[in-house]
């Protein structure tokens, strides 16, 4: 482990100047954070610290109803951030500020109904905030339909606005100039890459155009939102199964509704195989059409979640190994992993786009002899 750390630093020596500067700055910040935290955690036991870190990671991975940047004091319930609107459908629309929950400490009363936060979810309770459990220790309280603008929704809004702004400007710059200007210089090669190396080879020259909008949007959406997840704000949107499910279901719907006769023929009545095999293959192929987008959903979700869990666990190790070797070591590991996560952010966007294009390609494939 120590050797790995050293080679990592050595290889950094050969990197450009700005990388070195960045390294030093983050190193200083890391030491600073460590120094601040040390006094706080030294009084506590190691076991409880581990649980605390685990809980923190678990909490970090979940969506939340308020925008908390950081917590000053857990006991005194002091947080820096701002509340977000809560929108519920519970026999009528209920809109109120998440400040009413006081970060899950208190029960919110709206129009005579009482709501409480339970593991990040809003449940309906009585005035005391009682949570009823069944024998498997699951809450049995009624969960109203929650359309709240959560932290993740805020980020989806932000990324949407950012994309509209960036690409709208880029599109406008083409009106006066044949060559892209400003940010378009960076984005155009990526757009061309998606067209020439993802869409055209997988879908074919004849049909690729109608899928370009989706492929481009999904690529940039996943990429940008993954990158934002790596910023200190650390809001992970793509590690929510609901988000990846929404994206995967779009790929599934587009594949299904644009599929030609040949595609369905290959599912229900596979050509060039005996009749018995046709019957056996049909349900397998049909199941395959669901498994494909399902794998898209799980892949994106699992990659981003795993990246964050490992990254935060390594950061957490800093507070457990409170000695001169442990902290730099876990810092180095975290740094290396952050670089890897930068790659993963783009890679997962690429894979999602690539596989979507592959499924679209199979949907519009023309009949040809095998």
């Amino acid at each position, binding site marked *: 482990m120590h050797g790995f750390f050293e080679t990592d630093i050595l290889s950094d020596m050969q990197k450009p100047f700005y990388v070195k500067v960045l390294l030093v700055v983050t190193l200083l910040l890391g030491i600073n954070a460590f120094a601040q935290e040390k006094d706080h955690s030294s009084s506590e036991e190691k076991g409880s610290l581990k649980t605390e870190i685990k809980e923190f990671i678990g909490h970090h991975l979940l969506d939340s109803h308020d925008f908390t940047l950081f917590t000053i004091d857990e006991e005194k319930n002091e947080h820096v951030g701002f509340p977000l609107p809560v929108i519920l459908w519970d026999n009528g629309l209920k809109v109120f500020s998440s400040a009413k929950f006081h970060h899950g400490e208190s029960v919110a009363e709206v129009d005579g109904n009482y709501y409480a936060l339970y593991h990040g979810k809003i449940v309906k309770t009585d005035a005391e905030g009682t949570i009823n459990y069944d024998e498997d220790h699951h809450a049995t309280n009624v969960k109203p339909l929650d359309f709240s603008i959560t932290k993740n929704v805020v980020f989806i809004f932000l990324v*949407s606005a950012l994309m*509209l702004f960036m690409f709208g400007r880029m599109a406008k710059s*083409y009106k006066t100039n044949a060559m892209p200007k400003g940010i378009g210089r960076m984005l155009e090669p990526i*757009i061309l890459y998606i067209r020439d190396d993802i869409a055209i080879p997988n879908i074919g020259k004849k049909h690729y155009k109608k899928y370009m909008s989706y492929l481009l949007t999904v690529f940039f959406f996943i990429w940008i939102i993954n990158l934002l997840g790596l910023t200190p704000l650390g809001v992970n949107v793509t590690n*929510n199964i609901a988000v990846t499910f*929404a994206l995967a279901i779009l790929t599934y719907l587009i594949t299904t509704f644009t599929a030609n006769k040949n595609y369905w023929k290959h599912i229900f009545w596979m050509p060039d195989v005996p009749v018995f095999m046709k019957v056996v293959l049909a349900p397998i192929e049909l199941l395959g059409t669901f498994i494909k987008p399902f794998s898209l959903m799980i892949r994106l979700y699992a990659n981003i979640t795993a990246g964050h869990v490992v990254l935060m666990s390594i950061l957490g190790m800093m507070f457990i190994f409170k000695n001169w070797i442990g902290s730099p070591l876990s810092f180095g590991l975290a740094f290396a992993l952050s670089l890897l996560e930068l790659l993963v952010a783009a890679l997962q966007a690429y894979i999602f786009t690539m596989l979507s294009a592959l499924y679209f390609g199979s949907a519009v494939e023309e009949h040809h002899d095998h």
Partner: protein
Amino acid sequence: MEKLIEQFSFGLFFWQLLLFIAVLLLLRKFAWKPILDAVEDRESGIKDALAAAENAKKEMQNVTADSERLLQEARVEREAMIKEAREMKEKIVTDAKDLAQAEADKMIKQAQLAIESEKKAAVADIKNEVATLSLEIAEKVIKGQFSDKAKQMKLVEEMIGDIKLN
């Protein structure tokens, strides 16, 4: 898996789907279509320009070949013209020579004829002169030797014989 289902937030799913589709439609109209069209236009523009350049090059080659051919033709024509001119010159010279010869021959002939007739005239003149002279002589002789008739006759005869010879 159970945890995943428990974690699933319908609200987030709803917002993600709604916002993503909205962004997709907006971007399609205001960004992707203009961007891809612009890029495609540019690419086809470059392709056209390259094809035009290639065509121009070919045309240029054709023009060069044409001018080369014209030059060759002009050269051949020039040579033919020179040849023709030379031939014509020779012909003219020959013709002129022939004509001059013929004229000269004709003049010579005329001159000869003239000389002949002059000679004849001269001979006739001489004859007349001789006859006159002879008559004069004869007169003188006759005048001088009128006494001798026989002698006179003889002389006349001799004279007439001489004239006959001529």
